[in-house]
């Protein structure tokens, strides 16, 4: 069964300045958003999950594999990470080859890799760009290429780092759908994200990090009901939630649709 088990880990880049301390958490199936102020330790945390960094104390098990005992490349089959900046990975001359690089690395045959890559590009809506040079695409489309390049590897766990950055409404809707489809296929989806509306509309579970610790962890609706705590860590509530509060409603609303439906029923 898919899952990441994080057992009481701590981590620091320089001694005496802990970046993460005593994190103990278990990811099962729920799609999970990781939110927090800049510098809260989110990126460091996902790098640890991915095995790019190894915890100073404690253990992380990705689908039962202890990250301390495997190389990043070996873990790549189990867990995919979409980096923030697509320029950090693109080196092939065509989009399709770029997307096929990962799948081929983890042992898919060329034909298999091509199929999976086309499928991923299709899903993400840029299959018509397959033969273009990635650097001729806009940055937001290049970001989609980097997402497709992970999807094509078909890992059972996918982590996104700031996927909505630079995406317009359409791009975000597409991402939302991709994440929900992945969830439906049984893929464990985690994401670092700053767009609270996107969090509210997409994720079942939300983790709030602050100064290297998890300060809130629970179903997204419950997390956003802690208005004061969210403010204390310098985050803001999703717009629909804010509006609901300002209308003096007791429930915590996550999406505009929820709010509208609620009002309709009342009338």
């Amino acid at each position, binding site marked *: 069964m898919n899952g990441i088990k994080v057992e009481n880990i701590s981590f620091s880049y320089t001694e005496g300045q802990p970046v993460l301390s005593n994190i103990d958490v278990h990811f099962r199936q729920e799609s999970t958003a990781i939110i927090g102020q800049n510098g809260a330790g989110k990126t460091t945390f996902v*790098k640890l999950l*991915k095995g*790019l960094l190894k915890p100073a104390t404690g253990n992380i098990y990705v689908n039962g594999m202890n990250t301390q005992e495997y*190389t*990043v*490349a070996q873990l*790549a*089959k189990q867990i*995919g*990470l979409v*980096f923030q*900046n697509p*320029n*950090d*990975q*693109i*080196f*092939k001359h065509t989009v399709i080859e770029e997307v096929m*690089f*990962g799948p081929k*690395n*983890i042992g898919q045959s060329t034909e298999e890799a091509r199929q999976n890559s086309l499928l991923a590009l299709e899903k993400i809506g840029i299959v018509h760009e397959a033969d273009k040079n990635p*650097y001729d695409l806009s940055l937001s489309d290049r970001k989609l290429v980097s997402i497709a*390049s*992970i999807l094509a*590897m078909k890992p059972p766990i996918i982590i996104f780092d700031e996927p909505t950055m630079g995406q317009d409404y359409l791009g975000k809707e597409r991402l939302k759908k991709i994440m929900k489809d992945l969830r439906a296929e049984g893929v464990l989806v985690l994401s670092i994200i700053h767009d609270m509306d996107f969090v509210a509309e997409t994720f079942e579970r939300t983790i709030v990090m602050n100064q290297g610790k998890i300060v809130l962890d629970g179903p997204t609706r419950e997390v956003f009901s802690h208005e004061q705590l969210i403010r204390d860590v310098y985050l803001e509530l999703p717009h629909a939630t804010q509006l609901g509060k300002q209308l003096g409603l007791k429930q915590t609303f996550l999406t505009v649709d929820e709010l509208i439906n609620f009002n309709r029923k009342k009338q």
Partner: protein
Amino acid sequence: MTLYVKQDSLIHEIDPITKVIYAFVAALLPYILPSHTVALIVLVISIMLLVVGKVFRKIIPLIGLSLFLIVSLVIIQGIFRPDNVTPLFHFGPIIFYKEGLSYGLLLMLRVINLLCAFGVLILTTKPDDLIQSFIQKGMSPRIGYVIGSVLQLIPQMSATIATIKDAQRSRGLETEGSLLVRIKAFLPLIGPVIMNSLISTRERSIALEVRGFNAKQKKTFLHEVHTYKYAKVIQAVLILIFIFAILWRIFL
């Protein structure tokens, strides 16, 4: 990437140009006057300045780095110098001569002296201040920019390379192991590095241009370079010593 150490000391207060002059004069003196005493005196002065500047400990690893060169200089001169005549001691069949060792020692003093003299400059001067002083003295801002960006580029590039390595390892690329594995990993790693630096070079030049880098007007400077009270006096003394040394060498 800079060796500059932020400290509060007399040496840090001295303006960059004076320190540049000191570095050159101190580095050249032992060559103009090739005696052990001169080299030793200059070296002691440089070390004293480093101590006053509270950066003496930072020079030790730099000297350590060049130790291999220094030691091999002494050994080779001690054994093979052509005017070797007086044997001093021997290890088995290898004989060390007095003349060679003495010359090797002088070379060693010169190298350490060079390091310490420039250490005074580099360890106590912010690169930005140094570059700005040169530009104010009339150096082209373009050259100043090139020097400044090289200093910035190296740490920036190594950070980019680390990220790229992470990104490719995340896609199942093995980067460690046999030579073949490493060769295979080269292209996926170097490709994005080059693309990234080309892109950032273009963007940086645009960013510079929109802020009037090539404007023809006389420029003002954001930071006021602190002037040191005795700068002119020290500079004059240093240059006098330098001229005196040359004259000494020629006429005596």
